[in-house]
């Protein structure tokens, strides 16, 4: 074969322009700003990575992200990024260290596998928010969809509004603070971790039980609210794993069904 291929394809099979940094940001006083309205997903991510890793910029503003998918994934650097608009699915995944603000909403699976840092979503989030979260603080000021913090392994998720079904599904560690109401099956099949709920709970999931409130809970919630300027925390109830379902005894799986 000869000649260069001018079109590449992204993971969804869609044609994308060849992967080149667009170099569209303006930089003033160490702060970079660029408009993402006419950029593809790949161009936005290349521009971001170029600014942060190649040019050493630690303060970036991305305007008009337009709910595009997979934006800002894999940023492993302490820096500030502000998205002025909304993100689509799988945004901000696999990040380690940045402080991020999204002024709009985010789609499914924001901050999947986040390691550390702080992410603040000013509006709503879709389902699977903070899936497999490992560390850091994820704050959603609006509502979230279903299965928030599914498979969560650490970190803290704070939701200002309501949460959907199966919140904390198969959660293993970490905390969630939901100020509004939660849907059915809260904490279903959770291994560990703590769920705090301010509103009503439609139903508890398998092996999720109400826990005893301690001074450590008060300290944690107040500290998180203080750090993030969220005001005084409202009264909350605490839910934890009942530790009957998984690996806490020597019963065979068929015998567990009888126990539960």
């Amino acid at each position, binding site marked *: 074969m000869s000649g260069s291929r001018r079109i590449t394809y992204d993971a*969804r099979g869609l044609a994308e322009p060849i992967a080149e940094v667009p170099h569209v940001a303006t930089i003033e006083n160490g702060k970079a700003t660029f408009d993402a309205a006419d950029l593809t997903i790949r161009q936005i991510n290349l521009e971001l990575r170029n600014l942060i890793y190649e040019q050493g910029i630690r303060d970036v503003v991305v305007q008009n992200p337009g*709910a595009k998918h997979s934006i800002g994934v894999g940023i492993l650097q302490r820096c500030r990024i502000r998205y002025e608009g909304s993100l689509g699915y799988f945004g901000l995944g696999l990040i380690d260290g940045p402080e991020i603000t999204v002024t709009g*909403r985010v789609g499914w699976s924001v901050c999947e596998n986040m390691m550390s840092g702080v992410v603040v979503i000013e509006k*709503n989030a879709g*389902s699977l928010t903070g899936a497999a979260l490992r560390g850091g603080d994820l704050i959603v000021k609006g509502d979230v*969809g*279903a299965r928030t913090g599914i498979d969560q392994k650490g970190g803290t998720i704070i939701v200002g509004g309501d949460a*959907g*079904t199966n919140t904390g599904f198969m959660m293993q560690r970490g905390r969630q603070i939901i100020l509004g109401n939660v849907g*059915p099956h809260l904490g279903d099949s959770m291994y560990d971790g703590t769920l705090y709920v301010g509103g009503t709970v439609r139903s508890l999931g398998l092996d999720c039980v109400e826990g005893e409130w301690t001074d450590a809970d008060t300290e944690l919630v107040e500290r998180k609210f203080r750090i993030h300027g969220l005001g005084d925390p409202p009264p909350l109830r605490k839910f934890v794993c009942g530790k009957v379902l998984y690996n806490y005894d020597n019963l065979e799986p068929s015998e567990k069904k009888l126990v539960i």
Partner: protein
Amino acid sequence: MCGIAGIIHRDGSSDVGTEMTSMLQSMKHRGPDSAGYALFGQPTELVVIRFKLADANDPRDFDFSERLERHRQEVESRLHKIGATVDRVERETEYAYRATVRYDGDMKALADYLESVPGCEVLSLGHSLEIVKDLGDAQQVSDMYKIGGFEGTHAIGHVRMATESDVDISGAHPYWAYPFSDVAVVHNGQLTNYFQWKRRLEFNGERFQSECDSEIIAVYLAEKMSDGDSLEDAMHKSLEDLDGVFTYMAVTKDALGVAKDEMAAKPLVLYESDDLVAMASEEIAIRAVLGREIDTHDPYEGEVLVWTR
């Protein structure tokens, strides 16, 4: 995976053909196999019949064209025989047609009579509903059927990644809720009690044109509405009766509804204003129409929402 989209102008009308094409094309990655539209134009006294006489990927044997023409003539002849006054029969593609007729008789009798012509499938029938679906992406289907410029009040659409049945027009969405005029459905998901419901509904005399599980929803709603349920009541009942994961949209001549299963396993993003409601599997589809910053949210598990004009 599949992608679904819906838009309703609550007061007035718009080029819903172009709007729906933009929405569906922005979700092309969710389903490249086929694309389909259920478009509602201004209600007319005429009955609009969308039908096809072959599938896009049927083998083209020597007498294919001649056979199609013979069957088209038979359809026209039967329209006359059943008492319909034919206004126009237009050939949209090699195998798909749009007919307008004056007819005030029984819609089921009309549909059954036409569908007994070999190869004939009535895709839609009504005073304002027109279902268009074919293989390819939304732009290709729109170009083929000249969807752009379709002035209407509301529409739903679908891009399909085939998982449950063949890649053909019969397996493409939307599904018309036979024999109800002006009712259609699009669905994203899988129904696990499909065969159970198909047997029940066939026992009750309902007919199915495809092997696609999604067709169950349209026929299910049609049967419930024939028993006197409103669209919203029928949709609420479907949450109890249908197993599996689904988000589906249903439309009638003056309403658009959406339902999500109890696990909320399939996505839906919703934008609502006083004069416009738009929804889709992904927000980018809504932005393809609105093109500005908007506030959206995801409906919750077990929700049924219906908007009327």
